[in-house]
């Protein structure tokens, strides 16, 4: 009898699931609006990055729609959470496909982007990732990126430090469990061999121990490092700066685009600690050019927080798509594959100026050509570093 009950409950559950699921079938026919899908972590450890992307897309889409859409066609957008997990990212991609997505803006992080690009290339879906910086993320023909690639930042930073003789003894602290950080780190190390400076401390941390940096800093201090290279995100960088100040260690801190946000996105952070920090970044939320000011004002009004670089990259991604669509004359009726053909033929010819770079161009391999600008933080503000 007990078994019968179990069989009964099992089939009940199965039936329940069936009814639940049957409602989820999507409309796969070519639609008459643009459907931009976004993927990124909206929950979990890296939620700040995914939510930045989500908001950036949302804001740009709203602006374009209010101005009449792209060639008169309105844009729909949808964002799926992937919790920085490759598998969930692919799931999110499939969900977006059911929804009728015709262009993908994602994924937010490198690993997820690699996994998704494998599936999206089979569908021949145009994929523009705002923030996945690994080269592998754009290996497929249909994938392009908005942010700097790891090599351009890694070797770029090493050359910059060497050229400007910013330091002679360099310490590095990188996140060895993070794709982005390791990518830059590897390229930095490779290029450092050609430069005149010497790496005296090569330290790392992992996602599981990212609050206590005292040891890494002490080692750098003892080795006499006069410059500490931090290829990491602002969250950990803020902690490193705080802990360095507590031990009276004040070398030059040199960051990359992940460091952007340190002035504006860590609420409660004592920004005087960031004084003198140099970073290579394409976007500064407190820049005074009209484009940035408009974006930041609109973003702050809509979401109550200052945009980070993820939001800026995603916002640019939408406008890049708009420009590509206008230039190539693609329409939603072309179908996923047709759109991808037109847009990927156009992107290698186009040149785009946005929040995160002037005259950005793309190579056929999918990488963006834009060069980081070095900024120094002076009086709580970015200044172009000469």
């Amino acid at each position: 009898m007990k078994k019968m009950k179990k069989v009964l409950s099992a089939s009940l559950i199965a039936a329940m699931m069936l009814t639940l699921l049957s409602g989820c079938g999507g409309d796969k026919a070519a639609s008459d609006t643009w459907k931009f899908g976004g993927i990124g972590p909206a929950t979990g450890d890296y939620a700040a990055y995914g939510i930045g992307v989500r908001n950036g897309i949302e804001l740009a889409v709203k602006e374009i729609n209010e101005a009449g859409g792209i060639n008169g066609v309105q844009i729909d957008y949808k964002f799926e959470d992937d919790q920085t997990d490759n598998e969930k990212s692919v799931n999110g991609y499939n969900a977006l496909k059911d929804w009728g997505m015709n262009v993908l803006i994602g994924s937010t992080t490198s690993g997820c982007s690699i996994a998704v690009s494998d599936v999206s290339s089979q569908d021949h879906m145009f994929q523009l990732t705002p923030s996945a910086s690994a080269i592998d993320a754009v290996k497929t023909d249909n994938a392009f990126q908005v942010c700097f690639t790891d090599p351009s930042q890694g070797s770029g930073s090493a050359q910059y430090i060497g050229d400007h003789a910013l330091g002679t003894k360099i310490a590095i602290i990188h996140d060895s469990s993070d794709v982005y950080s390791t990518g830059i780190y590897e390229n930095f190390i490779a290029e450092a061999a050609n430069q005149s400076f010497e790496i005296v401390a090569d330290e790392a941390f992992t996602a599981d121990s990212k609050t206590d940096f005292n040891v890494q800093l002490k080692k750098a201090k003892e080795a006499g490092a006069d410059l500490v290279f931090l290829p990491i995100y602002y969250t950990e960088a803020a902690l490193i700066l705080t802990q360095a100040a507590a031990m009276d260690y004040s070398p030059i801190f040199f960051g990359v685009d992940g460091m952007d946000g340190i002035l504006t996105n860590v609420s409660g952070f004592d920004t005087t600690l960031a004084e003198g920090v140099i970073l290579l970044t394409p976007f500064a939320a407190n820049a005074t050019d009209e484009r940035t000011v408009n974006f930041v004002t609109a973003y702050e009004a809509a979401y109550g927080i200052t945009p980070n670089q993820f939001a800026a990259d995603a916002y640019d991604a939408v406008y890049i798509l708009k420009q590509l669509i206008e230039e190539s004359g693609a329409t939603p009726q072309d179908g996923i594959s047709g759109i991808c053909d037109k847009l990927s033929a156009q992107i290698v010819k186009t040149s785009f100026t946005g929040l995160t770079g002037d005259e950005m161009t793309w190579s056929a391999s999918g990488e963006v050509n834009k060069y980081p600008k070095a900024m120094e933080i002076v009086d709580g503000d970015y200044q172009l570093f000469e």
Partner: protein
Amino acid sequence: MKKIKLSRQSRSDLITYGIILLLSLVLFFVGQSSYQLKGLLVPVCAQIILAVSLNLTVGILGELSLGHAGFMCIGTFVGASFSIYMEQFIHIPALRFFLALLVGALSAGIMGFLIGLPVLRLKGDYLAIVTLAFGEIIKNLINMVYLGYDGNGLHFSMNDTASLGLAEDGVVIIKGPQGVTGTPADSNFGIGVLLVLLTVFIVLNLVHSRDGRAIMAIRDNEIAAESVGIHITKYKLMAFTISAALAGLAGSFYAHNYNNIKASTNNFGYNMSIMILVFVVLGGIGSIRGSVIAATVLYMLPEILRFMSQYRMLVYAIVLIVMMLFTWSPKAQAWKAVQLARCKKKLQPLTDKFRKKSSDELKKEGE
């Protein structure tokens, strides 16, 4: 007409297989309705295998393990690396995939044996924490592994890509935190169902065997089991190793569905181990088909909840708590028993018939 004789045990087993087949049939048809659900079919099989294999440790052996994802991780990375490297030598995908599954399961099994040897004498929460520690160590070490190959064979490093010293035409298989990239997509739902059936077959057969009874005797009372001459370490190790090997099988199968897999806390760390444990406990500790159903439902739930966007994980948490309270709290169980009794009364005529039949069978068996 000759009646097929079935013991209660094999009838129960048949029901389990039946449920799996029915469930896969349902999943298959449901999967046709959307890309999203179709994309879930392969991982859901992996989750079921993981849940069933953990149930062997938790339910049958009665030891709490919080490091199951670590074994899956080994299977994933070994299996995927094997396939990528062997693509140049073995040109039959089916054979290569079969070997990759085997290699993944074997490597995880060996690891399970090596880990089990020293730690299985620990008990309860202490064992739990040690398995958690092993899982974390495996995840952390995998994050440091760099593996590649070129004309000269495999290269391995714990530092970075450059120190692999690959030739120009070299291919990087595992790239530290970026994980393993380029695994051929060999997995599909059909193979998944076969592997689930295989897993369930292995576990059920073990449970019904002499060895299985010894394992369960240890679970029920270790000292009593020892006093009747059951070799405790041997049987504990046996269950633990098989459980680890099956997790490795799931890992290798799972790996061949994604072009890139990285080892993060959520998919191979303690969070994942705990998630598998959730499947087992919710499905009923020791109940194989419970694990199958719970893994399917709980794995799909967050995906089905996607329409709730930012509230979905919150809803998921609440559903999880409520489901736990409903299935496990003594009060809810009493309530269910009352409802069941009511049902029983209504179904009385039917059951009488059923019971008569089975007593006939028993009689025949007796003859």
